[in-house]
């Protein structure tokens, strides 16, 4: 009697904690709630299509989309599209990041580079990336290079500003410590500034990778003859809504996967950066 009432009040406290600012949540509760939302949306989707409330042209049933994706998968079309798009997004994102990280570190550390590049990056980053689509096609055609260029325009300028911010967050006393230990400018960067900013830079890369996906698909939607975005455009032309929605879901899953992989790597690479993210 007493034990059961205690258990009851425990549940009540846990429930209340879910709706308290900064309250705690257990892992099972978290998974139940987040899984429940997915399940609920799926159930609504199933209900409106099975009942005939929405026509398949506008929203096909989950089963129809699954069948379409499986047939595209056995035919190899899906995998071919994923391969092309994954290659483009990785290459484009790698080029942008490889340039943005060193430049962002320079802007964050040295006032000369900040004055020279920060206002410029701020200016360019407000230009709509989609407006560059016709120009990039004019300059480089509709091949992979154009996709890299769009990804680069869409992520590089944001990345350098975010990396700059990551570097500026290095505690000033860390730099003071390095100086009192007589470190040279180069060693100060390599041994204190960069290692200290690295968890933040990794976070920046994780967030901007999502944007790279977006810009890739935009580029593929507008001008391409392969890739996930290209297939979406073609399917739309023939009113194959099942393919369109199936591919959008595939894009969501790919994004979620890369995000989870990068988060897991973050825990492995920077175990000391606890409570940061």
């Amino acid at each position, binding site marked *: 009697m007493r034990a059961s009432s205690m258990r009851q009040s425990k549940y009540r406290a846990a429930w209340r904690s879910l709706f308290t600012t900064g309250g705690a949540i257990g892992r099972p509760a978290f998974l139940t709630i987040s899984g429940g939302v997915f399940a609920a949306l799926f159930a609504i989707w199933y209900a409106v299509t099975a009942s005939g409330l929405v026509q398949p042209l506008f929203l096909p049933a989950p089963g129809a989309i699954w069948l379409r994706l499986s047939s595209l998968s056995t035919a190899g079309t899906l995998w071919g599209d994923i391969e092309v798009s994954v290659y483009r997004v990785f290459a484009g994102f790698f080029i942008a990041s490889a340039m943005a990280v060193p430049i962002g570190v320079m802007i964050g550390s040295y006032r000369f580079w900040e004055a020279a590049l920060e206002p410029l990056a701020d200016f360019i980053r407000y230009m709509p990336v989609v407006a560059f689509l016709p120009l990039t096609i004019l300059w480089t055609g509709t091949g992979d290079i154009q996709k890299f260029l769009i990804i680069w325009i869409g992520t590089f300028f944001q990345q350098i500003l975010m990396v700059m911010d990551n570097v500026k967050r290095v505690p000033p006393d860390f730099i003071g410590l390095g*100086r*009192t230990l007589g470190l040279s400018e180069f060693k100060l960067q390599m041994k204190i500034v960069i290692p200290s900013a690295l968890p933040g830079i990794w976070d920046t890369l994780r967030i901007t990778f999502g944007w790279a996906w977006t810009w890739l698909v935009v580029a593929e939607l507008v001008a391409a003859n392969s890739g996930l975005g290209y297939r979406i455009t073609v399917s739309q032309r023939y009113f194959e809504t099942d393919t369109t929605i199936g591919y959008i879901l595939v894009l969501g899953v790919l994004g979620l996967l890369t995000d989870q992989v990068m988060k897991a790597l973050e825990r492995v690479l920077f175990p*000391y950066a606890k409570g940061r993210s």
Partner: protein
Amino acid sequence: MAPKLEIKGLNKTFARTVALHEVDLALAENEFVSLVGVSGCGKSTLLSIVAGLLDYDEGDILVDGAPMTGPGLDRGVVFQSYTLLPWLTARQNVEFALKAAGYKGAECRKIAAEHLALVRLTKFSDAYPHQLSGGMKQRVAIARALSYRPKVLLMDEPFGALDAMTRHEMQILLTRVWETHKLTVLFVTHDVEEAVYLSDRIVAMSINPGRIKTEFSVNLPRPRSAEIISSPDFIALQRRVLSTIREDFAIDEN
């Protein structure tokens, strides 16, 4: 004997305020000197300048008779904020400083172990900073600053972020380390009791402009026990220093 650290005619102005005005101060070898004063009196500014981390307008700073030209290994600094590098263990943090000072592998390990033992953290040698309490982190920071044998140790409110109990433990530990280790220390604090307990001499600073107001010799016997803080001499000196500092509050209020 020539002073270990000498500050002559130091002036420093920030945009509108005179942070330091004609500051003269000399520390003898193995002397423990505390700078006390209300916030904004320039005591931390003075320490940063001596550390070589902040420019000044006029004056001379001599370390062991040689003019100071910037930050360097001849002055060790313990900061108020926690400055252990989070990606290194306690031992690696100490070795980081030793490597910067030019020590090599095996020697580094030996000296780091000795200094972690000195601050009683041998058991936590392989712990990362996020696994250590605030007091432990500052003990590692002290071990690190002592390890490469700087000529002068500069401490900027190193216990300012700690709770009262830990603070007290740290003061006892620092006194013990200093009494066995002997080192020239310039210590900034706003805690008068801490200053009296630790120091040979207390320098009280005054605000607007930041300048040296009065000095007090602390003629309390060493080694100093924890009980000394309730002795009449201790309390009398503490009162004198406090009333000197309080005059600045009175000026502020008018």
